[in-house]
C-alpha cells in the first residue's frame, strides 16, 4: 500500500511538472506581441466605408507618438481578429491581400522606404528594413485596397504592434482598437412629375398657396388718360423641357362694343382704342407692373417682355421656361385706352392662363 501511494505520488509529481512546463511554454507563445510592449495611446483606425464586404477600403491608422522612442521601428502590423481574447480569428471576409500604402507613413522614423507586405491576409503590414531613425511624433499609416469583413453590424478588432525588426517578430509597442461594419442605409425618395401653377391678383412671393383675387379693375376709361391694372401668376415644374403659359380670352367687350386688342406690340396711345398686356417689369407709360421674381428660370415671351409695349392675341405664349425650374412670379400688366367715340358701357373680359408642362 505504501509503495502504491509512493508510486502514485511520484506520477502525480511528474504530471504536475509536465503541466507546469507545458503551461510555461505556452504563455510566451500567447503573448508574444504583448510581452514587453508598451501601450500605444491616442490610437484609431478609420475606415473609408463600413459596408460589409466592401472592397478597396481605406484603413487609416492614427496614433499619438509611440511610447518607445529610443529604438527604431522597422515593421508595423495591424492584426484583425474577431475578439481580443484567446487566439486571433480573422473576421470572415476580411482581406489585406490587395492592400497598398496610400502614402508613406509619418511618425515612424524614416519618411520613405516603407512598403506593404500583403502576404498575411488577416494583417495589414508595412516594413522598412533600412529605417534607422527613431520614431517621433504622431503616427499615421494609411492602407488602401482592404476588403471589409462580410458580416454586417459586427465588431472586429485590430491589434496594432510596432517591431524593432523587419519581420514583425520583436515587438516594441502595441495597442488595440475596435472597429465595426455597419448596414448601409438606403434612403429612397420618389419625385413625381410636378407642375405648380396659379393665377390671381395677389400672391406672397412665389407661394401659390397664397394666391388670391380674380378681378382686375381698370376703372373708368378716358380719352385723356390710360387705364391700367395688374394680375399675377406663378409657375414651376420639373418637366424636362420646362413649361409654356398661354393667355386665352377676348378683348374688353360690352355687348357688341369692344376695345380694340393690340394685335402687335404697340405703345400705349391716349385717345386711341387699345387693350393690351405685357409681363415687362418697368413700364413707365403708363407706370404699371413689376419685374419677374423668384429663383426660377422662367421668362416672359418676346412679344410680351418689352417695357411700354403691349399686345393681346389670344392663345399666344406669354411666358416660358426651357427646363426644370423653380417658381417664378409674373406680374401681368393690363392697359386700356379709349377714343372719343368709344361707346359707353361696362367692358369686361375673362382671361384664362394655361400652363403646359413638357416632360
Amino acid at each position, binding site marked *: 500500500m505504501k509503495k502504491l501511494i509512493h508510486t502514485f505520488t511520484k506520477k502525480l509529481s511528474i504530471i504536475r511538472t509536465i503541466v507546469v512546463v507545458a503551461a510555461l511554454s505556452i504563455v510566451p507563445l500567447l503573448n508574444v506581441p504583448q510581452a514587453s510592449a508598451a501601450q500605444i495611446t491616442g490610437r484609431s483606425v478609420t475606415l473609408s466605408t463600413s459596408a460589409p464586404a466592401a472592397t478597396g477600403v481605406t484603413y487609416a491608422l492614427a496614433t499619438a507618438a509611440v511610447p518607445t522612442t529610443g529604438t527604431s521601428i522597422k515593421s508595423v502590423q495591424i492584426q484583425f481578429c474577431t475578439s481580443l481574447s484567446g487566439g486571433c480569428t480573422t473576421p470572415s471576409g476580411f482581406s489585406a491581400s490587395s492592400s497598398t500604402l496610400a502614402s508613406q507613413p509619418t511618425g515612424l522614423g524614416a519618411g520613405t522606404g516603407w512598403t506593404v507586405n500583403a502576404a498575411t491576409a488577416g494583417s495589414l503590414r508595412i516594413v522598412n528594413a533600412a529605417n534607422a531613425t527613431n520614431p517621433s511624433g504622431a503616427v499615421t499609416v494609411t492602407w488602401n485596397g482592404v476588403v471589409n469583413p462580410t458580416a454586417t453590424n459586427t465588431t472586429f478588432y485590430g491589434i496594432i504592434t510596432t517591431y524593432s525588426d523587419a519581420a514583425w517578430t520583436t515587438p516594441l509597442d502595441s495597442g488595440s482598437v475596435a472597429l465595426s461594419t455597419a448596414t448601409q442605409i438606403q434612403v429612397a425618395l420618389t419625385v413625381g412629375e410636378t407642375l405648380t401653377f396659379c*393665377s390671381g391678383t395677389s400672391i406672397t412671393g412665389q407661394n401659390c398657396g397664397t394666391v388670391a383675387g380674380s378681378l382686375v*379693375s381698370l*376703372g373708368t376709361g378716358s380719352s385723356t388718360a390710360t387705364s391700367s391694372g395688374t394680375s399675377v401668376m406663378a409657375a414651376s415644374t420639373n418637366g424636362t423641357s420646362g413649361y409654356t403659359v398661354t393667355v386665352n380670352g377676348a378683348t*374688353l367687350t360690352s355687348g357688341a362694343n369692344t376695345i380694340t386688342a393690340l394685335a402687335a406690340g404697340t405703345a400705349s396711345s391716349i385717345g386711341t382704342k387699345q387693350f393690351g398686356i405685357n409681363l415687362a417689369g418697368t413700364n413707365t407709360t403708363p407706370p404699371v407692373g413689376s419685374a419677374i421674381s423668384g429663383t426660377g428660370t422662367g421668362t416672359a415671351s418676346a412679344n410680351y417682355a418689352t417695357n411700354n409695349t403691349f399686345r393681346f392675341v389670344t392663345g399666344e405664349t406669354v411666358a416660358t421656361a426651357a427646363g426644370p425650374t423653380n417658381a417664378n412670379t409674373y406680374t401681368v400688366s393690363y392697359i386700356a385706352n379709349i377714343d372719343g367715340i368709344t361707346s359707353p358701357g361696362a367692358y369686361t373680359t375673362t382671361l*384664362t392662363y394655361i400652363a403646359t*408642362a413638357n416632360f
Partner: protein
Amino acid sequence: MTKTNPTLQRIIYGFSIMALLMLYFPHVAGAAQITARKVTLGSSAASASTTYAMNFTVPSATVLQSASFTVCTTASGTCSTPAGFSVSSSTLTAQPTNLGDAAGWTVSTSTAGSLRLSKSGNAAVPTGVQTVSFSNVVNPSATNSTFYVRMTTFSDAAWTTPVDAGTVAGSTAGQITVTASVDETLSFTLASATVALGALSTSATGSGTSSMTVSTNAASGYSLTYSGTTLTSGGNTITALASPTVSTLNTKQFGLNLMSNTTPAVGTATSGTGSGVPSVGYNAANSFKFNSGDTVAAASVPTNTNTYTVSYIANIDGVTAPGAYSTILTYIATANF
C-alpha cells in the same frame, strides 16, 4: 404523412409572393417610360368643360390597341380622381395621330377618372410623336390645383396589357376678369370769348372768327346750336341774314358760317378726325346766315373731335347809326345717346 422539403417550400412561397406582386402592380411591371410627354388643356379654369390634348412619344415599337390617361391627385401610388374631374362626356376631338391606324379609334367613358380610347384590330405600330385629343372633359373643380395624368399604352384593346407609361402634371388656374367702364362723354370747348369785327364801313366787310371743338361717344352723335341776337347798339341793330346770303358791301348784314371763305377772306375748314360737319345754311363758303336757334353743326354717330371755325361778317350801309354794336351768342352742344 409525407414530409415537405423546406427548401422547396421556400421556393414556392417566393414565387407566390412575386406572382401576387405582379397582379397587384399590373400596369407598372414592364412598362417603359413615355418621353416628350405633355398635356395641353383648352382651358385651365376650374370645372370648365374643355379639351385635353396629349402629345407624347412611345419608346416601344409595339402595336397598340388601347391607351388610357388617368387623372389623379398624385403622380404615383393609389390614384384618387380629383374632385369634379369627369370624362363621362368625353369624345375624341379627332382621330389620334401616329398611334397606329389613322382611323377607327373610339372613346370609352366607362371608367370614371380615366380618358380612354381603343381600337381592336389595330395592326400598325406607333410612329414618331403621338397626339391624342379629347373634348368635353370637365376640369377638376379646385382652382390653382395641380393634378396628374398617368398615361399608359396597351397592346390589347381592353387596357389590360401595358406597354409604356408616363406621367405628366397639369394645373387648373384662377381666371382673371378684367373690367373697365366707359362713361358717356361729350367734349365741347370754345376757344375764344370775344370776337372783334373792328370799325365797320360801307366799303369794307368786318369779319372775325371763333372756334370750338366737339366730340362725343353718344350713339347718335351731337347737334350744335347757337342762340342770341344780332349786333345791337342801343335801339339800333345790324340786320341779321335770315337766309344764306353772300356778303354785300354797303348793306346792313350780320351773319356767320363754318366755312373757309374768300369774300371776305375769313374762316378755316373743319378739322379733326371726327365725323361732325357744318349744317345746311352754314356749310357754303361765302354764304352767311344768322338765325338764333339754328343748328350749325352735327354728327350723327359717336365722333372724335372736330374743330369748327365760325366766321362772322358784318356790313353796314351809309345810314347805319354810329355806336358800339355787340351781341352775346351762346353755342349749345347736345349729345344724343
